[in-house]
């Protein structure tokens, strides 16, 4: 049986034959906050216990010796921090447990298991050939030397007042970023040349090896760190998209600002920003079609909508709010929240109400519904600019077929997909750990092959690496 997203975990602490029943109030990475069932007989603080037994859904696990440390404040006074959840904290005395996934999937791992895995990870480099090792060593030497110059600047500024420190950093960024880009672009070109003839599985191995070596450079960049860690469980989340749309310097140090900005100025990132203009045009056409057909508002469905930044280019005057009835679909609740906030901000700016609703669902699972058009109606425009890059060909074909059936006669389907000649591909795979399903022109056009009566057209954006398939239903 699958478990709900937040579990109810109960347990008991045992010492000298006595048991204290409790529930877990919060799981910290390496300790637990607990609330006792009998609040009138709380254990003294600190109290040593022989073991903690946790239970959930009829299953139980036993953890070793631990210490109960009661909360020091029962209620906040003045500037005190808010009270911690529960009656106190459980700290373990003989093992380091990892509780990060306890409340989500009920799993508790031990730090010792990570240590036990080290030989497996260490042995992985034995398959990496000497030429690639030497290449990585030279590349990282260059980058570390470059970085050291800017880290020294940061250190020299440590004792300056914050305003002066920030001003000098901004000047350094303005003066030196262009030069850094030329330097880094040249190194990226060498990396692309080095791995050009490498097979797919060896590229994976090389990417793994490379990121382990380059981790401190990767982790100093807010953007690169997020693409690598994927905190929402998948690449290309709405926070990454927002960073790309904002296209600004971020970071405490000068070098971290370079490393954040550089990947969001690539061709692939430009292609993401180019979607806004393209979609604004598609909205205008849909609005015109609906008006010509005297159909009222144009009905629009955005599939895998992300933060829906394109709406800033669609809803640009009070009159635009009357033109569209929009459904934003995404699997990610955080993305839908961001999109909702963006729409609310537009409404406030223009003093108008938008007809926009959100739907949380995964496109992979929603297709089984036989009555999708009964549920959602039909649309003048359906678009998905960043999702097909993650769908394999069989799934992409199924998805496009279902979406096509949701179009009104005359309606249009707009699908984005990166082309294999994306010049940012190696940068994305090696530095960002970000892999896409690339399609050639033929592969993208094939998706429209079985759509009855479809009129497909293919175009490239200004970056030359993103294709758009536009399919009109007659």
């Amino acid at each position, binding site marked *: *049986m*699958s*478990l709900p997203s937040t*579990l109810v*975990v109960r347990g008991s602490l045992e010492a000298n034959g006595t048991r204290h029943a409790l529930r877990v109030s919060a799981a910290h990475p390496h300790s637990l906050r607990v609330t006792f069932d009998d609040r009138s007989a709380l254990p003294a603080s600190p109290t040593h216990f022989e073991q903690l037994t*946790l*239970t*959930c*859904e009829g*299953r*139980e*696990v036993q*953890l070793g010796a631990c210490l109960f440390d009661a909360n020091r404040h029962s209620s906040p006074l003045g500037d005190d921090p808010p009270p911690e959840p529960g009656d106190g904290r459980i700290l373990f005395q003989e093992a380091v447990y990892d509780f990060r*996934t*306890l409340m989500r*999937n*009920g*799993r*508790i*791992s*031990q730090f010792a*298991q*990570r240590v036990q*895995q080290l030989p*497996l*990870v260490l042995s*992985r480099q034995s398959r990496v050939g000497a030429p690639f090792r030497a290449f990585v060593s030279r590349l990282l030497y260059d980058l570390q030397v470059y970085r050291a110059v800017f880290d020294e600047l940061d250190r020299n500024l440590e004792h300056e007042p914050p305003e002066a420190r920030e001003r000098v950093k901004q000047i350094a960024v303005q003066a030196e970023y262009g030069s850094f880009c030329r330097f880094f672009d040249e190194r990226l070109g060498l990396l692309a040349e080095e791995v050009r003839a490498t097979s*797919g*599985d060896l*590229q*994976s*191995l090389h*990417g*793994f090896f490379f990121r382990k070596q380059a981790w401190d450079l990767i982790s100093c960049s807010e953007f690169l760190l997020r693409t690598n860690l*994927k905190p929402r*469980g*998948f*690449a290309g989340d709405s926070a990454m998209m927002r960073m790309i749309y904002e296209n600004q310097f971020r970071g405490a140090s000068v070098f971290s600002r370079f490393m954040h900005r550089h990947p969001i100025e690539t061709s692939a990132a430009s292609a993401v920003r180019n979607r806004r203009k393209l979609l604004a045009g598609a909205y205008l056409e849909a609005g015109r079609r609906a008006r010509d057909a005297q159909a009222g508002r144009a009905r629009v469905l955005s599939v895998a909508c992300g933060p829906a930044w394109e709406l800033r280019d669609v809803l640009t005057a009070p009159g635009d709010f009357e033109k569209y009835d929009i459904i934003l679909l995404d699997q990610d609740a955080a993305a839908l929240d961001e999109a909702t906030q963006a729409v609310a901000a537009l409404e406030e700016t223009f003093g108008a109400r938008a007809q926009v609703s959100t739907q949380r669902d*995964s*496109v*992979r*699972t*929603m*297709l*089984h519904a*036989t009555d999708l058009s009964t549920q959602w109606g039909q649309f003048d425009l359906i678009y998905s600019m960043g999702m097909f890059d*993650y*769908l*394999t*060909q*069989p*799934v992409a074909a*199924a*998805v496009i077929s279902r979406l096509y059936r949701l179009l009104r006669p005359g309606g249009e389907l707009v699908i984005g997909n990166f082309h294999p000649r994306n010049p940012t591909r190696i940068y994305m*795979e*090696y530095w960002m*750990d*970000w*892999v896409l*399903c690339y399609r050639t022109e033929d592969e993208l056009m094939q998706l429209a092959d079985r759509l009855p009566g479809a009129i497909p057209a293919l175009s490239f954006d200004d970056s030359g690496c993103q294709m758009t398939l536009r399919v009109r239903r007659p």
Partner: protein
Amino acid sequence: MIATLSMKVPPRWAEFDAVRDRSLEFLRRNDVATDPCIAVAMVVSELVENAAKYGTFRRGSDAIEIAVTLAHTVITIEICNPLGPNQTCHVTRLDGMIQWIRGFQDPFEAYLERLKEVSAQTLDSSESGLGLVRIAYEGQAVLDFFVREQNILAVSAVHRL
């Protein structure tokens, strides 16, 4: 060259060795080298076992459908099984698991993470997902799925030669 092997088997474990053998024979007959043959046969076996474990076969005619297609340098394995009406959690979990596995350039990283979780103490009785990770890591295949009409789960794995 495009060639397809299609099979339909009941969800009985005794049938699965024959599915693996027929897949191997099909690939060898089409001149696929030994290593990818073994990798793809492993992928077929894992997906068929998953279909039997997590599918809902209520009618006698309900079966697991298997298609192995060789198109030039791409082998696509598609496995379909019926789902029950209350399997939303399973499908949601599968969705998250597959996206998570595919988030790594090197599936070895997913393999490491999953090994850690498999050896962990757990309050969760659902599947570990190690089989799916093996498909990505050892089978060198890109996983994907969708739920089609009539509540049929269609899982695919794409292996490039």
